[in-house]
């Protein structure tokens, strides 16, 4: 592997007196799934918002394909091929799958100022992309609200991939899902990774991370506790790192290792 698709080098982010990120380094290569683990409040959200151009870092450097880059807004990041799928902001449930899929980039036909959406093409491509993700739509113009949470995540992922994402940031895509939907989303992640896209998978569920991750970075109190390769680390160790050591270990004893 040569240069990472995106490299976050010693990123700091301060909100007034609060240090949300105190020097976090993180990178993603093409075709890998790099999991970012952390408990609630560890700084995961702040970090991905920095990576997707919502926040500007207070310190540190972002490199895209080895080049120093500054993202002024989410659009800059999107143009650099970095797509983010937020847990709750993925889709508009009242609108159809097609309308959601193409939102902001609707294919059009017609002349001069008289242009209309080419719904035939839009519906066909949506249907095909959904099929590729393993979702069988009854029809492309059914409302997103009729899909399950996992399917909505998959539509959002399919959309990002279709529009040329090189890095896909998934913000807790499985945290609100049931068992079967989770496995669907994890399968989708595996499929996307095989297509050569770098996936950043944010989660606090170690088992979900172990299922698809190639590398694991743990974030705790705004700092990284190192990056481990697949096979180098046990789930229990990740769990401990996330919790910051002892407390969970003690708890685990009383729960009989069920977490």
């Amino acid at each position, binding site marked *: 592997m040569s240069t990472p698709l995106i490299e976050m080098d010693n990123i700091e982010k301060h909100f007034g007196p609060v240090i949300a990120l105190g020097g976090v380094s993180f990178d993603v290569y093409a075709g890998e799934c790099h999991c970012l683990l952390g408990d609630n409040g560890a700084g995961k959200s702040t970090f991905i918002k920095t990576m997707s151009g919502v926040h500007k870092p207070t310190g540190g450097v972002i490199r895209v394909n080895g080049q120093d880059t500054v993202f002024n807004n*989410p*659009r800059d990041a*999107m143009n650099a091929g970095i797509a983010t799928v*937020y847990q709750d*902001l*993925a*889709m*508009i*449930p*009242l*609108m159809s799958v097609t*309308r959601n899929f*193409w*939102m*902001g*980039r*609707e294919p*059009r036909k017609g002349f001069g100022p008289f*242009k*209309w*959406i080419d*719904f035939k093409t839009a519906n066909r491509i949506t249907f095909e992309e959904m099929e590729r993700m393993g979702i*069988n739509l*009854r029809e492309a113009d059914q*409302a997103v*609200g*009729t*899909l399950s949470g996992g399917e909505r995540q998959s539509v959002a992922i399919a959309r990002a991939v279709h529009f040329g994402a090189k890095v896909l940031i998934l913000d807790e895509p499985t945290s609100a899902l049931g068992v079967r939907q989770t496995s669907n989303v994890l399968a989708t992640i595996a499929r996307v990774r095989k297509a050569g896209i770098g996936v950043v998978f944010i989660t606090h569920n170690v088992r979900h991370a172990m299922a698809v991750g190639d590398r694991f970075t743990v974030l705790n109190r705004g700092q990284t506790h190192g990056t481990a390769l697949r096979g180098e680390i046990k789930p229990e160790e990740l769990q401990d790192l996330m919790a910051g050591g002892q407390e969970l270990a003690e708890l685990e004893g009383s729960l009989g290792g069920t977490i």
Partner: protein
Amino acid sequence: MTDERLKQVSSLRRAMIRPELGAICGAILVFVFFLMIAGDSGMFAPEGIKNWTVVSAQFAIIAVGACLLMIAGEFDLSVGSMIGFSGVVIAILSVHMGWPVWAAIIAAFVVAMAIGALNGFLVIKTGLPSFIVTLAFLYILRGLTIWLSITTTRQTIIGGVKEAAKGDPLAFLFGGVIFKDLFQWFGEMGWVGTFTRGTRAGQPIVEGVPMLVVWAIVLVIFGHFVLTRTRFGNWIFASGGDAKAARYVGVPVDRVKILMFMFTAFCATVFATCQVMEFGSAAADRGLLKEFEAIICVVIGGALLTGGYGSVVGAALGALIFGVVQQGLFFAGAESSLFRVFLGTILILAVIMNTYIRRMITGER
């Protein structure tokens, strides 16, 4: 592989389950009702049809604007005041200041749409609910209208527009009547009654299709096309459905919303201009309560009050229901106060049905 939990849905059911279904049922119900109680009152004779068509068309014109704005997630409570304001602007400029009527009409449109843009700008920049911002403009515009009218002409009704508008090309576009020859022929064929005495003897009682009705039809078709077929229409849905999610994928939500406020102001001015041309006068109290009537039409038509869902065709049907009920009770000889009872009942029934239909379509729980 198909999901075994998806029920087979018949194509009939699929064609039936649409946002306008409530309004379609309501319209059928209302027509059947009035055919029964007022079928022989002249309500469905040519003059009667013209009567409720014109009233419905008035509602439809402002409902199209209110519909698109509501789908974009905002309200405009200043529509009624805007109607009064635009009318008075036209009358003052043309009658009092001696401008040609076409110039006065253009000026009214420019001023109204600028105020619409200001409404939108304030809503976007302050982040206040449009309910509050446009409620303020409901009072500001009404007050300005009366003040303007009194300081320039010492009265609140300004007449003489008809004389000023004679032969004016733009005035015809709002106050004219088309298909006169066709209706003359209808009269000769005996399909439309003719005057038997007076200066207009031999002319049909319904002389043609008023431009007001043409405007309503054109605006409904335009609004429906923009909303359902164009990229901008998709952005209207997105802005009202979830502005944050829409922004995130690059939809210019602020621009969409401000343009919709301007379009609502445009529709209000179309209404005002048609009315001024028809009556030949402007009055400072015109358009009272029109904002609520527009919203009622839109809601009967299946739109969601909080935005992101709705139909222009539904809103037009809502306007038709509104017009037919209002005029129908008059034809039926019912107490006019019953109109409001009837209207409130229809409003509740339509909204209950629309909510049910919407849940079926969108999977809301």
